[in-house]
């Protein structure tokens, strides 16, 4: 793992001798959620696209500060739930009333009241599985490589530090402007990501 340098001026120095390190972006560190929210508002207003905020817990109001849109996951889950519901009804009808009808305790072949528990369970099952894997899908997880992992300091992003990352793979990325933006955020530390 490449060691990241502590300040942007030193960023031209190669981390690995002999190989020019690839330049990946900026990482700005903050000590508390309030500073992060204010900085996020600034980056949002700058029009920068490929950036992110990192925090050890979901900071309230940060999604608004970042200008994130509501996720569409709930609608997909609704679809999945209805699919489970319909499938359960169809399955019970087909198996017990159509394909192999069997008289049991004097109930009709197709007994809706008796089918409701399984319909309910399958609705929840389909929705639950969709929620979990839908969350992973929309977040592109698992993703074991990411530029921010080059930073040693970033290890504290899952404990007690707050970060904003500005990534270089934005098509409009301008190194100088990104540096200015990074420094204008009043973070406790600014770091160049390279590796």
């Amino acid at each position, binding site marked *: 793992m490449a060691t990241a340098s502590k300040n942007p001026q030193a960023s031209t120095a190669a981390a690995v001798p002999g190989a020019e390190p690839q330049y990946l972006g900026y990482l700005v560190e903050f000590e508390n959620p309030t500073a992060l929210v204010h900085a996020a508002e600034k980056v949002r207003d700058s029009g920068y696209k490929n950036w992110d905020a990192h925090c050890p817990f979901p900071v309230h*109001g940060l999604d*608004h500060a970042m200008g994130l849109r509501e996720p569409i996951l709930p609608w997909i889950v609704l679809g999945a739930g209805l699919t489970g519901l319909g499938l359960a009804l169809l399955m019970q009808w087909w198996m017990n009333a159509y394909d192999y009808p069997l008289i049991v305790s*004097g109930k009709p072949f197709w007994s809706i*009241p008796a089918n409701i528990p399984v319909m309910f369970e399958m609705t929840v099952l389909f929705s639950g599985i969709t929620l979990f894997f839908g969350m992973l899908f929309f977040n592109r997880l698992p993703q074991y490589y990411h530029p921010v992992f080059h930073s040693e300091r970033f290890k504290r992003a899952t404990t007690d530090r707050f970060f904003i990352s500005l990534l270089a793979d934005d098509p409009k990325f301008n190194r100088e402007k990104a540096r200015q933006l990074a420094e204008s955020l009043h973070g406790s530390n600014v770091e160049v990501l390279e590796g």
Partner: protein
Amino acid sequence: MAHQTYLKPEQVKDDKAFLGGKEGQIMGIGAVAAVAGLAGALGLGASMGDGLRGFWFAWLQGCFLWLSVALGALFFIMVIYAARGGWNVVVRRIAEYFAATLPVLGVLVLAGVVIGGAQLYSWHPGSSVELEHHAQILIGRKEAWLNPAFFAIRIVGYFAIWGFLAWYFLGNSLKQDSTGDVTLTKRMWTTSAPGLVVFALTLTLAAFDLLMSLAPTWFSTIFGVYVFAGCVSSFMSILCLTAIYLQGQGFLRRSITMEHYHDLGKLMFAFTFFWGYIAFSQYMLTWYANMPEETFWYMFRQEGGWENWSWLLLIGKFIIPFAFLLNRRLKRNKLTLTFAALWIPVFHWVDLYYVIMPNYSPEKITDGRMLFTAICATVFVGGVFFASAAAIARGKAIIPLKDPRLGESLRFDNIKV
């Protein structure tokens, strides 16, 4: 992030927190509605030519709808204190006024079961209903419980307990308006939990007595919970409607926010679902075991036109409000929330009709006069209910002014908690 400025607790009294003359108007409208409703119900009831038997069924129906709201209110108040709740302080006083009408409703219910008891209850010695032999034996076994004197004493007892609880909480809450004494809140915290225990027992027994014993051989252990579920969802709706109405009239405009409505909407949703769950449990278990001594209750309701009413109940009381209130945006929009809050009590009424009226006549679903008598009776009791709530609120604030958790409630934000 939205920088909303919230009202401070000490500013609440200036947010049109007193009815200031409005109560006279509400009482007037209530009185007119009550008189008109009673006249209509009596007229229609007399026209049915059954010696006012239908009228007394309608009376019970009308009383029970508003009793549901008042009992839901009492539950809401006590559960807030027991759970040390905070978000709901701004709407609690309205609930307190609703609950405080319980003694008035008690007089109406008592009048119904004393004067109309022989017409309503076939276990009553004065009843003219011809019971089958096995039913006579079964009822004979429970005569110690189902006899007019003990029945009336129990009804008085339930309402005495509820009235005491309602006025205890209203009284202390009003006292806090002037003194701001925090120990009052602490005292109510302590009393609310045993209060809920007493409430659960009395509500269950009242449901058994007033509604279940209409079919005296029928029994269902879940019935008290069934009635309770209906009470809470219709109370939440009426609370919501009242708050929307008051805000429309310029009251509490800044105290009650969309956040509070959103939570009320969630509770309406939750108790709609809960009712569906309880109703399904009762129905499914009865249907599945298929034992004659309990299935007949549902058989009455699946024949002679009542099957349509059953479908109406399933779709109207469960499926539609459930699907409607799932969406967050519809709960956070006053117009759509008003629609839901109107819908739910209407279908609670449909539910009560479904429970009560087949005992009047399993065949007579097609008789429109019964339906209109019940509507008139509901208007009558509704008029009494709102007029008495307004009379109790005269000169008093319609929001707790010095509750220690008022600030928390004013600042409440649903999504970011």
